[in-house]
Structures are given as C-alpha cells and as structure tokens.
C-alpha cells in the first residue's frame, strides 16, 4: 500500500486504533476472568456454590402463578409441601406433615404438622398457614391459576389447632397423599390483595425449605442460599444458583469451561460429544415424559356432539391398530433419540416402576408392514388401482399429521411415519404448525393425527384423567382433551383407581386402565425419552438421584438432587487449574495482536514522516 500519504481523514485510523485497543482490553478480562472462574464464585472461606444451567425461564416466582418446570422446581426448594416423594422410588414421604390418616368414609383427611419449623423470617410454620394456602386457592380464582386442580375436590380445609389440618373432599381421592402445593406463610400473603399481579420478587423470599431465594435477575440468574435452620438439616452446598441459558449449546460450553456445574436437557448429540470430556460426568436418567401420536377417534365434546375434522376411517379401532403395527418404535428410538430412550409401551413411563405396564405378548402389536396390510384388507379398506387405500364409502385414507413446527423430533417422526404408512397405501400429509396451533387444533379435534406428550407425575391420576370422557372440551370451548378416548370401561377403571386407597390394588387398576387404553389405540405411545444431564466431576462427587436406579439430578419431584449434592474437596478448597491455560492463551494472543498493531502504527508513522520531509 505504498501509495504515498493517505489522504483519508487522519482522525479515522486513530479512532480505529483506539477502538481496537479497547477491544483488546476487553479481551484481557478473559485472562483475569478465567483465572477467577477457576476459583469458582470467588467464594471465600471454602464456601461452595452449585451452579445449574437451565434453558427455561422462571415464568413467575409466585407459587400460585408459576407453571414452568424451572419455577416449580424452585418452589420445591423454598416452600414446604405437606408431603414429598422419596428419592429412592417416588414413595410418598413426610415433609411438613409428619403423618396423615383418612377417615372411615374416606372423605376426610387429617394431617399433623411438624413442630418447631420456622419461616425464614423467624415466624413459626403452623397448620394455619396450610389452611390459609388452600383456602386462598379455593376462594381466590387468581390463586388457583397454577395449582387449582389440586383443590377441585375439596369442600373445606380447616386448622382445628396449630398442629392439625383437616381436609374434606367431595369424593374419595387417592391423590390426597401427594398434594404438591407449595405452602405459603399467611402473615406475608394475607397482605397481598391481587395475587395475579404479585411478582413475589422481594428478596429474600420468606419461605421454608432447604434453600432461601436471595437474588433474582430475570432471564439471567436466581441465587439461593442454604437454609441453616432447615428441619432436615443444612444442605451440603452453601449456595445454589440457577443460570439462564438461551440454548443448550451455550450451557454445554459453560459447563466445559467450568462456569456452571450441572447442565440438563442435553440433546443426544451434545451428550455424545461430552463423552470422555475432562472433569465431566454424564448422567443418563429415565425421563418422565411420554411421546405419543394421537389418532382422532371421532372427537366429540362433553355433550357428545361430534367436533373437528377427523377422518372417519380413524374411528375404526382396526385401522388405528393397523397403523400402530406399521410404526417401528425401535427404529424411532435409535434414529430420532439416538438410542437415548425407551420404546413406548402401555402409557406410563418406566421411571415409575410400580405403574409401568407393557402389553403381554398376545396383546402386543409388533412392527410388521405385512400384518398391518392384512389387517386393513380384512377390515374392508381395499387398495385402489393406484395402490391407495380407501374406506367403504370410497374416501381415500389420506391423513393430516399435525406436528410442532419448531421440534426436530416431530419433523423426524413425521418423516418416518409418513414413509411407513405409505407402504400401507395410506397417504400422510405433514402439517408443522406453531405450538399454539397444535394446542388449538387438538382441543378442537381438527386433526387426523397429532403429536402429543405429557410429563407424568409420580401419581398417575392426572395423565389417566386426560383420556376420560370428562376431559373432553365443553360445547362452548375450553377443556383439555388428549386423545378423545371416551370409553365406558376405561372411565370406570379410572374412577375406581382414584377411589382406591390401597396401593397394590390401585396399581392393578391403573394397569388395567392402561391395557384398555392400549387396546383402543387412540394414542400410540412411541417412546419415553431419557433425561440427559452432565456435571463437573472435579467440583461434585455426586448427587442424590431420584429414583436411585436410572434417576436424574435436576428434573426431580423433590429437592434431593440439590439438597444432597456432594461437593469435592477440591471445590471446598476453591482451587483448580481449569482456567489458567486459557488465560495464558488469551494473554499471549493479546500481546501478539498488540505487537502487530504497534508495528503497523510505527511503520505508518515512518512512512508519513518520510513523505513530509
């Protein structure tokens, strides 16, 4: 570029240099930063912070409003519940209630409240707080936003004394032992007039649990400190912090760099990529979700009037069962989930060993295109001259398959199903739409096939109810149907399991309900995806998983994972070498770049000077 003096404005290159220098300066904190992050938290005195990367927002810190998994898992940490699920096998164990019993008519439940438990502001936790919480939900519609379903069958909740709560219900409910409603302090919440507008963000949040929320920056992080007065004992870590990440890739990188300790919701690719990574251990847990395809069995509303646009052929269970035979679940688990999942069976996922049910050999419908074809031939859906099957009335079997547009899982499943059904002479048109539209079309019955899936609680009542006649939408809209199965025998089994207080009897009834659901084939359970997590093994020796076999750290129905995290000596000593190397690289890089810049400036000065002479 020895074209002579640069005629361009002098100020510009200088400004450019300045900016470049500033940028480089900005890179310098990388050095300091990573050295610091090696001594995590700048914790003094050997304090340990457990940092968990999450990819979901806290939709609200108000326990009456928050729906998201992120929020509900925090509520479990900062508010008490009457009972909780044990870490070993999801059995119901005492929490705030030390014991409970039901009356002879099964309509009245008495809970005894633990003594000597205090809210974080020093006030005692009493039966009055419990009664207040439930009554508020029953009286104030806004307070019923998130957990209203739990109090639906309640007639009254009273506190005869400070240690006793009595709940009366309209009908016998086996679910009463597992009411996952966060109990709030009456002396704080009674002054909240409008629950719907209350963000509950005044820190620290008055609660009672293993942790106390102390600092919240929306969409960035939520910090909790250990509750030293927790009745079960102080947690092993001193602080717990949930750090928001917009995508799991960013969270994985942060884990690799040691910026966080636990990451969840990994994709199979990410999970595989972390294999053998230094100081990182992976946890492959069974998931609580099932993934299903709903076949519209002739949707109807709660008045029994047909709604929606379902294909008439799908009302025939023989067609639905034939479709089921044409889906190779093994292949789906292998190709869609990368092998990280369990092949779909009855209904409830295998993480809940008690209720998990697989069809016995003679009820099973193994993958076989031939037998599916034969079944359709026999059922009276012949192939036309072009190979396409049509119904008795001549209408071709041409199904619209509604998918979640932003889900790559749905896209893949759609492609596979489309291909397999084409071998049956059934045409499938894939319709990827937004989540809102999937929901809307599901509720309105405007689909032939649609992807659905639910997270299952340790108590299966809720997901079982989805398939009852009662779940069908009301004529005016609303309702929460899943597969529009409205079957007398299924409903009867559902009602019996709800009223059955004996565990093994109830398990038997739940299995029979699943058998019926499988037989009707309105929802084809494809698989149960694994929950994939990973953590820093240099900072944590392990976590208490739930359940013990094949369990997870973060997505628990309880606080065990965080509460019983086991920091390593290294984490306690707050020393580690992870960051130094990259710091050195940064310093060298900055120095090199600086040298280049300086050299070019010098050269330019000289050239200009020469020209001026």
């Amino acid at each position, binding site marked *: 570029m020895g074209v002579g003096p640069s005629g361009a404005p002098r100020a510009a290159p200088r400004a450019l240099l300045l900016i470049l220098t500033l940028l480089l300066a900005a890179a310098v904190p990388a050095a300091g930063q990573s050295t610091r992050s090696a001594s995590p938290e700048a914790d003094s005195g050997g304090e340990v912070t457990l940092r968990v990367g999450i990819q979901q927002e806290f939709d609200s810190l108000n326990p009456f409003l928050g729906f998201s998994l992120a929020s509900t898992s925090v509520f479990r940490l900062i508010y008490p519940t009457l009972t909780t699920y044990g870490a070993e096998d999801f059995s119901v164990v005492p929490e705030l209630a030390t014991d409970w019993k039901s009356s002879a008519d099964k309509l009245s439940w008495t809970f005894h409240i633990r003594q000597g438990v205090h809210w974080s502001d020093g006030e005692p936790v009493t039966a009055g707080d419990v009664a207040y919480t439930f009554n508020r939900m029953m009286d104030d519609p806004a307070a019923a936003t998130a957990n209203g379903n739990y109090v639906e069958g309640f007639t009254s909740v009273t506190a005869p004394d400070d240690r006793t709560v009595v709940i009366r219900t309209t009908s016998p409910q086996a679910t009463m032992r597992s009411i996952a409603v966060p109990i709030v302090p009456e002396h704080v919440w009674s002054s909240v007039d409008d629950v719907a507008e209350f963000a509950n963000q005044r820190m620290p949040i008055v609660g009672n649990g293993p942790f106390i929320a102390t600092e919240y920056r929306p969409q960035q992080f939520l910090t909790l400190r250990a509750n030293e007065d927790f009745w079960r004992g102080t947690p092993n870590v001193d602080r717990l912090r949930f750090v928001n990440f917009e*995508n*799991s*890739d960013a969270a*994985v*990188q942060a884990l690799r760099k040691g910026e966080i300790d636990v990451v969840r919701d*990994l*994709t199979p*690719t*990410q999970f*595989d*990529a972390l294999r053998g990574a230094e100081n990182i251990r992976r946890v492959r847990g069974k998931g609580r979700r099932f993934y299903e395809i709903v076949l519209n069995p002739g949707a109807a509303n709660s008045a029994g009037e047909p709604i929606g646009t379902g294909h008439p052929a799908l009302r025939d269970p023989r067609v639905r069962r034939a479709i089921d035979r044409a889906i190779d679940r093994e292949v789906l688990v292998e*190709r869609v989930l*990368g092998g990280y999942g369990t092949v779909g069976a009855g209904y409830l996922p295998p993480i809940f060993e008690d209720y998990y049910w697989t069809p016995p050999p003679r009820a099973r419908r193994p993958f076989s295109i031939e037998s599916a074809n034969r079944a359709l031939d026999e059922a009276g859906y012949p192939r036309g001259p072009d190979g396409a099957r049509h119904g008795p009335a001549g209408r071709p079997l041409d199904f619209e398959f509604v*998918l979640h*547009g*932003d*889900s*790559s899982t*749905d*896209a*893949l499943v*759609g*492609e*596979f199903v489309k*291909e*397999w059904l084409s071998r049956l002479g059934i045409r499938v048109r*894939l*319709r*990827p*739409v*937004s989540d809102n539209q999937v929901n809307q079309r599901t509720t309105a019955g405007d689909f032939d096939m649609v992807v659905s899936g639910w997270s299952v609680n340790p108590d299966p009542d809720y997901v079982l109810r989805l398939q009852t006649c009662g779940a069908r939408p009301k004529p005016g809209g609303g309702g929460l149907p899943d597969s529009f199965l409205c079957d007398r025998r299924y409903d009867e089994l559902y009602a019996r399991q709800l009223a059955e207080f004996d565990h093994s009897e109830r398990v038997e009834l739940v299995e029979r309900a699943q058998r019926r659901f499988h037989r009707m084939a309105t929802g084809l359970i494809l698989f149960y995806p694994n929950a994939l997590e990973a953590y820093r093994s240099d900072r944590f020796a392990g976590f208490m998983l739930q359940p013990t076999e094949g369990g997870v750290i973060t997505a628990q129905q309880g606080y065990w994972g965080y509460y019983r995290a086991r920091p390593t000596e290294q984490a306690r000593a707050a020393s580690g070498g992870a960051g130094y190397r990259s710091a050195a690289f940064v310093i060298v890089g900055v120095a090199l770049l600086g040298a280049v810049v300086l050299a070019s400036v010098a050269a330019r000065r000289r050239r200009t000077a020469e020209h001026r002479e």
Partner: protein
Amino acid sequence: MSAPPNPTGAAGRRLAALAEGWRVYRADRGGLFGLAVLSLVVVLALLAPVLTPPAELDVTRAGGAPLRPPSAENWLGTDESGRSVLLLTWWGARMSLLVGLSAAVLSMLIGTVVGLVAAHFGGWVSTLLLRLTDFFLVLPALVLAIALSTVLSRGVLTIVLAIGVTSWPQTARLVRAQTLTVETRPYIERARALGGGHRHLLGKHVLPAVLPLVFATTTLTVASAIIAESTLSFLGLGDPAMISWGSMLKSAMDTGAVTAGAWWYLLPPGLGIAVVVLSFTLCGRVLETVLNPRLRGERR
C-alpha cells in the same frame, strides 16, 4: 456511447444495445465471476435429481452414522440423521435458489405495479401508494417477515410470501422515479396526444423503458431474499421437512453441532449462501451499471 452504424430499426437498435451492454458487462471481472458461478450453481441444482439419488435424502433410509467428519465415503461428513452433508447442500441449493428467485419475482411484481401506478396516474392514488411505500420502506423487513411467517402456516409458500411482501418498496420507488423520467420524454407525449390509452402507454412505452432497471434491481433482491430465507429458516419459521441451506443451519444449531465441533455441517451451507449471494450481488451491480447509463457515467 458511440452510436452504432446500424440504422435498421428498433430490432437492430436493441441488438446493438445488447451487444454494447455485454461489452460493458464483460469488462467487469466481478460480474463475469458472478455470472460463471451462478451458471454453475444453477446447472448443478437443476441436475441434482439426475446426478444424485434423491432416496438418500430420505431420513428413513439414510444409512450413515450420525455427525461423522468428512471421509472417503462422505466427502463432507454426515448430519445428525446420517445423511451426506454434501448431498444436503447440493439439494439445499435448489430450495434456496427457488425461494430466493420466487420471492424476488414476487417483490418485483408488486414493486413494479405500485411504482408504475403511483407515477402514471398521480392524484390521491399516487399519494396513497407513495405513503404506503414510504411506510413499508422504513419498516424493518425482517421483523415484518418474522411476523408474517409466524402467522401463516409453515411452508415454502409462506416464506416466499413473507419475503416478497416485505421487500418491494425499493423497487417501487425506483420504478416510480424511472417512470416519471420516461413519461416526460417527447415520444410519450406524442403517444398520449395520439390518443393512446393507459394500457397502451404503460405496456408499449413505459414498461419496456423501465424493465431493464427493474431487472437489475431484481438481481440484487434475489441476493437479499436468499439471505432472508436462511434467516427465517434459522429462526425456526421454515418447514422443518424442507431442505434448504437455512434449515440445514437450523438443524445444525438445534442438534448441538457447534458443541460437537461439527464444522463440516456448518461450513457448506453457509459458504453456499455466501457464494450465491455474492454472485447475485456482483451480477446485479454490473447490470445496474450496464442498464443505467446515468450510473455508468458516474462510475467512469
């Protein structure tokens, strides 16, 4: 421009203009490069079904191992379903080009009609159209396109529509300015005096004079439309089953290719976009120079 010594009427004049245009075009190396690359890409894209087995794009039949680095078997590695990235990029070119071209054509149609009408008819129609054009001109196109594709059902058509409907104002302004200039020329006056109707005037005289410029702008619009398509797909607004460069990058990001260090999955589609967009831009710039003598004068 030296007048060619060929007085044999309109056809001859056009031919001569064409030859002159090509001469100017040829002088620009960037333009030639762009044209060559584009021709190659278009030919390859058209021949994709002939040269490659489409069955291998079918996820249900893909046999390879997922996310493998380049090897002798798969020159550009595989994606998360075990499909060849080379094959995907090749087929992705078809969709990206198709969407880019259709969106640009749609945008050109809207822009030309609005511009012509606004310039030719005047009055309140013109005022209204001008205001509308100004409004859409300042509206951030991507934001509006995002809104549109959220609302409409997912698919190629939606993307084309979203891009086309948001990118026409520039064309409209250009066409309007050009039409205003053309309509002051004597021969238009003459045609008008001879009783030529609107249709005749616009179709026979104005449009032919305006079209070359529109063509040049459209070439540039294709470039931005291809980028817009990839951006919309990347934001998850495309049809996930459709293979385009944008949707490839979206899948790469979703499956965690960045974490896995799967550069072979990220590079090809992005390079494809860059090369094609650059080529369209280069061609468009030269075409502008060729077809807009005023600009040519300036650049000299």
